[in-house]
């Protein structure tokens, strides 16, 4: 039971990080970013390349530096990838007609081309990342929990907490929330849609990069490793309520639990059925999602 809970929370952390990024981007700049999977994968490869580079420079190599470095480089690479997506799909298109559709197509194109690019650059094989939190386990009663799992959960919760706090208190956070509510009003108080959009994409990217490095603790980095987090992230951001961080976190935990329980008690192949079924059920009863930031608002 405890093992189930831990693997559910690991999934929830990873999905949550990706979904928050998608949700922020979608609600603030109105772009459904299908290239988030590309950004995710880019973070993983960034971290992988960093590990290779560190391997060649053994003398500066100590465990902790490596661990922090891998996470930071993964986040940085993904943030840059996010900015790259913004440069191609957001800045040239955002004030043209039909931006939502054009943006969707542009990000889809980046996603498809990006995957091919990763195959060309790194080959189709899986690449491993080092175990950041060691391979040891600790025990609760008779249940063995890997430190890697605990570490993933703690780091993800910490980062999500920081992002939530920052959104609530900082000037930039206020401007992002203002843009979600009313982009024209935000424009009129001096919030630049372009700058804010790029900042949002960079932050979303960094969160995905973190998730990517965390995922590589249990799986590997591969050209397609972003596909599944993208799909699940998308439906979580919808189920959580676009733009609502608490809602997104709640939805991630729910879907993480559903996935872990389904995989354990039935078959792994049933997971997508359960996930999508759950999200459809949530949206049928709460069309604005769990969090629904716009819930108590008169239009």
């Amino acid at each position, binding site marked *: 039971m405890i093992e189930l809970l831990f693997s559910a929370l690991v999934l929830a952390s990873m999905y949550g990080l990706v979904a928050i990024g998608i949700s922020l981007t979608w609600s603030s700049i109105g772009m459904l970013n299908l290239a988030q999977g590309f950004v995710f994968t880019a973070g993983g490869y960034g971290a992988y390349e960093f590990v290779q580079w560190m391997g060649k420079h053994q003398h500066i190599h100590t465990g902790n530096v490596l661990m922090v470095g891998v996470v930071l480089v993964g986040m940085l690479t993904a943030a840059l990838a996010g900015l790259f997506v913004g440069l191609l799909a957001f800045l040239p298109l955002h004030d043209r007609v039909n931006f939502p559709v054009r943006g969707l197509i542009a990000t889809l194109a980046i996603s498809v081309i990006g995957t091919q690019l990763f195959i060309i650059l790194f080959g189709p094989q899986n690449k491993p990342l080092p175990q950041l939190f060691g391979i040891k386990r600790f025990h609760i009663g008779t249940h063995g929990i890997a430190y890697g799992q605990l570490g993933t959960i703690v780091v993800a919760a910490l980062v999500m907490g920081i992002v939530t706090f920052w959104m609530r208190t900082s000037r930039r956070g*206020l401007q992002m929330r203002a843009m979600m509510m009313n982009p024209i009003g935000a424009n009129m*108080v*001096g919030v630049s849609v372009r700058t804010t959009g790029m900042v949002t994409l960079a932050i979303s990217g960094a969160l995905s990069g973190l998730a990517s490095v965390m995922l590589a603790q249990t799986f590997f980095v591969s050209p397609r490793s972003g596909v599944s987090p993208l799909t699940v992230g998308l439906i979580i951001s919808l189920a959580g309520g676009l733009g609502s961080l608490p809602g997104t976190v709640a939805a991630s935990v729910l879907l993480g639990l559903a996935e872990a329980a389904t995989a354990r008690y039935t078959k792994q192949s049933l997971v997508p059925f359960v996930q999508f079924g759950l999200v459809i059920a949530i949206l049928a009863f709460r069309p604005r999602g769990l969090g629904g930031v716009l819930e108590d608002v*008169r239009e």
Partner: protein
Amino acid sequence: MRDVSAGYGTMRVLHSLNFTVEAGERIGLVGLNGHGKTTMMSTIVGMTGWQDGSIIFLGNEIGGRRTHGTGRNTPKIVRSGIAIAPQGDAIFPGLSVAENLESGAYTQGAWRQRKKRRDAVLDIFPPLSDRLKQTAGTLSGGERRMVSVGRALMADAKLYLVDEPSLGLAPKISIALVAALCQIDLGDGAMVIAEQNLPLLSGRCDRILGMHAGELKEDVGEALGDLPPAAELS
């Protein structure tokens, strides 16, 4: 403003406007619906479909010819010192009243003094004091208007544009609101209030300009100068 024209698509709303706002001046802009008051304000902050002609603000050109990119320059213009309270409010419905006001103090200078500026705005609109934590989307129409105008006043601006402060409000509330606007100490800043209801403004502004079919009529205030201010009418 010199030779300023503006419009949307093939429609030309403003026809070569020329006028100047001096520092410290409070100007009323009156005219019927659809004659270009809102468009003029939108033009100043670059939110029309296209525009042409020169707009000089504090010595800098903020106008010029533009055929696309609606609103792209707006943040820059706003940050250079023009605050706008648009028609229809454009408040942030899901944010609290306090956050809505704070978002108005977006420019670096104003952000640092946002507490002080907020207190000043609350002095002008006392009803908002009890509602700081309330979600702005749940306010009444009059309170929303106060939030919208208050948000503009939060900015450290040299020119305040207030578009139709009385629109859709009960007469009593709109009189109080306009009276409050006209009593604010502008210092060396200036204010332009667009309004359909001339008696609300007369006697309270330094100048009243008329707008008709996209052209300005200078100083209609004099012709109607004998009208008593609205507060006395009621």
